[in-house]
């Protein structure tokens, strides 16, 4: 009997090319001070030839290698992305083909920046339902494909990259490592952030998104803690979607997590949408900032004004 699921291992991939604020100031009317003070980004990574599937494969391959499982053990692959120009075959089957994963249930999911937490929840539910045993969950984005480099309000925000987790079932008696999800959306306000139409660019009403993020989300993140039965003091890390340091700090202040380190991977990675949470989490674990088994609060939010969060145990 499967009592739940847990994250076994993590992996991430970022393109080698670094784009600094000074680099950006040469192509669009902006400057380092403005970008740092508004969003807290110093630099971001930009893919050259890598596709969403390439980056997803690289991150998933590292997670799989660290898991102790082999490709033959994996029977589900889920890729969260909102920036993939390749739609069919989907990214999940592309990843599976390249990693030699045979006949997995394979699907992409698009809830923009909240995608990784949505995908983790779906995979957790599938494992609980007995529909899968071992899964790879990936967030991968090439947002620079949909960035308008002439729009100074958005060009400074985004980066490319991927993060991945291997998720497996836990037997009865073992503590589940993935807690209940709190998820939803504010569809009536969804038009404040768009990637829309043929050959689209990201368009955003920054003030409206900022207002929603800094007012609506902290209570929802607290609901995650309540539903999981985890006290604020127990949480050792808070990994929010890396949209803006001021949003992250604003939510963190209202959550008041006295023993948690706050992920600020945005400083060096920019906003990588669905990749930002697994990327930040994977790097945190790689740096050994969070002990194994410690509760980590994940909270994704973004386009569509979707959100999803859960507490996971650090692998």
């Amino acid at each position, binding site marked *: 009997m499967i009592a739940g699921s847990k994250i076994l291992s993590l992996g991430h991939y970022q393109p080698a090319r670094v784009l600094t604020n000074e680099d950006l100031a040469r192509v669009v009317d902006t400057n380092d001070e403005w970008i740092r*003070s*508004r969003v807290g980004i110093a630099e971001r990574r930009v893919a050259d030839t890598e596709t969403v599937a390439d980056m997803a494969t690289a991150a998933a391959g590292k997670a799989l290698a660290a898991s102790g499982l082999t490709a033959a053990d994996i029977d589900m692959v889920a890729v969260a992305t909102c920036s993939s120009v390749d739609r069919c075959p989907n990214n999940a089957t592309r990843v599976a083909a390249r990693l030699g994963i045979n006949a997995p249930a394979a699907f992409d999911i698009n809830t923009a920046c909240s995608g990784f937490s949505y995908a983790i929840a779906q995979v957790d539910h599938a494992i609980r339902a007995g529909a899968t045993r071992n899964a790879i969950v990936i967030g991968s984005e090439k947002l620079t494909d949909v960035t308008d480099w002439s729009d100074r309000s958005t060009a400074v925000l985004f980066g490319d990259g991927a993060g991945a987790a291997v998720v497996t079932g836990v037997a009865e008696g073992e503590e589940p490592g993935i807690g209940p999800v709190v998820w939803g959306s504010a569809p009536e306000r969804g038009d*404040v952030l768009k990637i829309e139409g043929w050959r689209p660019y990201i368009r955003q*009403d*920054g*003030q*409206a998104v*900022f*207002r929603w993020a*800094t*007012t609506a989300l902290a209570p929802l993140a607290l609901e995650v803690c309540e539903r999981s039965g985890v006290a604020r003091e127990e949480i050792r890390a808070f990994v929010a979607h890396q949209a*803006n340091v*001021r949003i992250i700090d*604003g939510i963190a202040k209202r959550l008041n997590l006295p023993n948690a380190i706050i992920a600020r991977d945005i400083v060096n990675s920019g906003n990588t949408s669905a990749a930002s949470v697994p990327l930040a989490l994977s790097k945190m674990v790689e740096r050994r900032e969070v002990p194994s088994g410690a509760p980590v609060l994940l909270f994704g939010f973004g386009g569509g004004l979707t959100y999803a969060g859960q507490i996971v145990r650090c692998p």
Partner: protein
Amino acid sequence: MTSREDITGGLAEILEEVAGVNPDDVAEEKSFTEDLDVDSLSMVEVVVAAEEKFGVKIPDDEVQNLKTVGDAVSYIVKAQG
């Protein structure tokens, strides 16, 4: 009903808290961005705090019309009816 002076004073408290603005610098003719150095995101925080303090609704579309402290005071007076 709150007087214009009281609303200005309340906004000065909010501006100090949110954006570190010296309350002595806050006056009706002052521009939020030009004179008080309040950026667009801090302006959102000011608006959210003002909604709570004065019991009014200030929609996103309205925020861009609030150029000066006086604009905000007038809007709040009107919204309080």
